[in-house]
């Protein structure tokens, strides 16, 4: 083990090196670019023995990664924002091909207009594709989660691609101390590549041709089964990793001071740090708040959330994304699990990188708690507007 100061993107690159990925195909996009740059440097300097396919687009990046996976090699790609949207079609094809692949996503806002800052709409847009989707809070977790992603993806009960998201700039470009495990330790912990089939002259198989509707339906069902099994395996991998490397994160959800809490903030990504700070302030003021940090949005941790949160007085969900015409996606997901069991509110905040401070979380929680105590939780969606627009009148009167 060695301690290094790494940006989130460099932590991803270190993890890919340790996992001994054999083929990397990626196309640069802010704020993911330094992952491609660092991996190119590693392969050219011989720090990582891998083939680099310097593709001309993200659509091709994932296609090349999928091709490498189909041919039997551990393959990796990385992207962000529009790159991820451009890949969308291949995301489906990859998951439905049941080939293990790992991808890092530097979560970033989607245009128009152009905005390169953190926002979760790009990853939220991929929830239906069949990928396992993890979201890290800080750089150490980025490294650990990326290494774990290979083991999860290549687990014979799963065989699905895994996407690891790290918040654009806040993690991708911010340096923090990161413990980097030794190669030997990782070689012992991470099994050699496993996959359901290989497309090669020896195997002579055809992958992805037409199928009967009945078989298609059953293949779809099998992806759902794998996602369900993944819930357990992600927990096991987290425990096993913790045993070897001394760091556990709580599997699908990190429940921070949830057990004795009356109210729980639910969110994901790097601003969980600010939310934890807010939590401490609130507790000092006598408001008994906990935090449920979603680590995996796919598979969605419904059982754990139900178990941990159903008896709370209220759940406040902070979304860094929105499903236009409805509410924030995390709220939709949480409501699908807890609706009717407890009071709920969704807050849309931090879109396009708008800074959200601990006191903003405090303000929203206090307002929510007030409403719950008064029995007046009427608005399920609230907009935490940017500071200079705080007086902006919401809605339209027709």
């Amino acid at each position, binding site marked *: 083990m060695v301690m290094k100061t790494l940006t989130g993107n460099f932590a991803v690159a270190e993890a890919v090196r340790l996992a001994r990925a*054999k083929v990397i195909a990626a196309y640069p996009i802010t704020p993911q670019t330094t992952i491609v740059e660092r991996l190119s440097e590693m392969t050219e300097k011989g720090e990582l023995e891998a*083939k680099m396919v310097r593709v001309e687009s993200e659509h*091709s990046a994932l296609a090349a990664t999928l091709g490498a*996976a*189909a041919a039997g090699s551990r393959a990796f790609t990385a992207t962000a924002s529009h790159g991820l949207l451009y890949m969308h079609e291949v995301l489906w094809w990859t998951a439905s091909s049941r080939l293990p692949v790992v991808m890092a996503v530097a979560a970033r806002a989607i245009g128009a207009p152009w905005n390169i800052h953190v926002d979760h709409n790009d990853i939220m847009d991929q929830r239906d594709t069949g990928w396992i989707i993890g979201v890290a809070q800080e750089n150490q977790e980025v490294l650990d989660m990326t290494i774990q992603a290979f083991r999860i993806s290549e687990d014979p009960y799963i065989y699905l691609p895994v996407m690891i998201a790290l918040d654009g700039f806040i993690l991708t470009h911010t340096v923090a101390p990161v413990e980097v495990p030794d190669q030997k330790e990782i070689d012992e912990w991470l099994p050699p590549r496993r996959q359901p089939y290989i497309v*090669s002259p020896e195997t002579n198989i055809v992958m992805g*041709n*037409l199928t009967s509707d009945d078989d298609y339906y059953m293949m779809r069902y099998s992806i759902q089964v794998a996602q369900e099994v993944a819930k357990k395996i992600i927990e096991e991998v987290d425990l096993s990793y913790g045993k070897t490397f001394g760091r556990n994160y709580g599997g699908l959800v990190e429940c921070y001071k949830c057990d004795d809490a009356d109210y729980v903030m639910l969110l994901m990504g790097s601003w969980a740090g600010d939310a934890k700070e807010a939590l401490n302030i609130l507790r000092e003021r006598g408001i008994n708040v906990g935090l449920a940090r979603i680590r995996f949005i796919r598979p969605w941790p419904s059982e754990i959330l139900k178990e941990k949160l159903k008896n709370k007085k209220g759940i406040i969900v902070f979304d860094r994304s929105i499903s236009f015409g409805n509410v924030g996606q995390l709220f939709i997901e949480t409501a699908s699990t807890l609706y009717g069991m407890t009071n709920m509110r969704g807050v849309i905040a931090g879109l396009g990188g708008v800074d959200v401070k601990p006191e903003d979380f405090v303000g929203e929680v206090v307002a929510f708690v007030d409403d719950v105590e008064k029995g007046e939780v009427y608005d399920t969606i609230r907009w935490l507007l940017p500071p200079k627009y705080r007086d902006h009148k919401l809605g339209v009167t027709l």
Partner: protein
Amino acid sequence: MPVRLSDFPRIRYGMPGNAACPGCPEAMGLRYVKMALGDNAVLVMPAGCSSVIQGYEPKSGINFPIMNIVFASAASLASGMKAAFESQGKDVNVVVWAGDGGTGDIGFQALSGAAERNDDIIYICVDNEAYMNTGIQRSSLTPAGAWTTTTWTGKKEYKKNLPMIMIAHDVPYVATASVGYPQDFIDKLRNASLIRGFKYIHLLAPCPVGWKFDPRYTAKIGQLAVQTGLWPLFEYMNGKLKISPFSRLYRRPERKVPIMEYIKLQGRFANLAKDPEKIKILEKEIERQWEWIEILEKATNNKK
């Protein structure tokens, strides 16, 4: 290297009962690919008629390892596969089999990317000159004058000259072929498989359904395309362009078979067949083709 029919393997690569239409040039072409490359090849296929010819899983109408992939990224998937085989120390021919749409239109970006990177794959454009699988819509490779379901009065624009565009990518191998001349196609595939880097073969594939001709004439029309000069066969290798033997025979204008022999067999050119003025559009196409080829032939063979 001349190829003799008796040299070909007798193994069945296109399985009986596959979903190809009668007289399908793709089913013919696929057989030739495997005859040329043998068992050490993997096929990458974007959407197209060949996706259908494979039939329903768990069986396949084509005795090949095939990775199917979405339309726009066949070349990239092949690049990734090749990289993986290379990293495993395996020497496998990774072959893309894509239609004119998957090559010249929706797949063009990926094709250009793989060519520029000089990735070690063989890319075959099986060109039936329209989007046949969706029901005969025009593509950028549909010839001028041809009827399609999106060009009812005949296409106004000329066929995109994809082989020339690929030569401009400075790749080590570019060739044209026709299902009418299997030996020539197989010969070119074998040449391509011996070269490292990006190889592009553009195979003309007359489609009985889309071109509206009797299915028994697939090979004949494939030959007439060459004999009229409309589809010149050539091979660009080691930086030199050579006109292939079957086209060399019809090189001089007076040796060329009149274009009418080609169009009169095809319903898609019914409009042209009625009007000698309109035939000029294809005569011009022949001139354009040969002009390019002769310029390149001269330039590449004279250089030291």
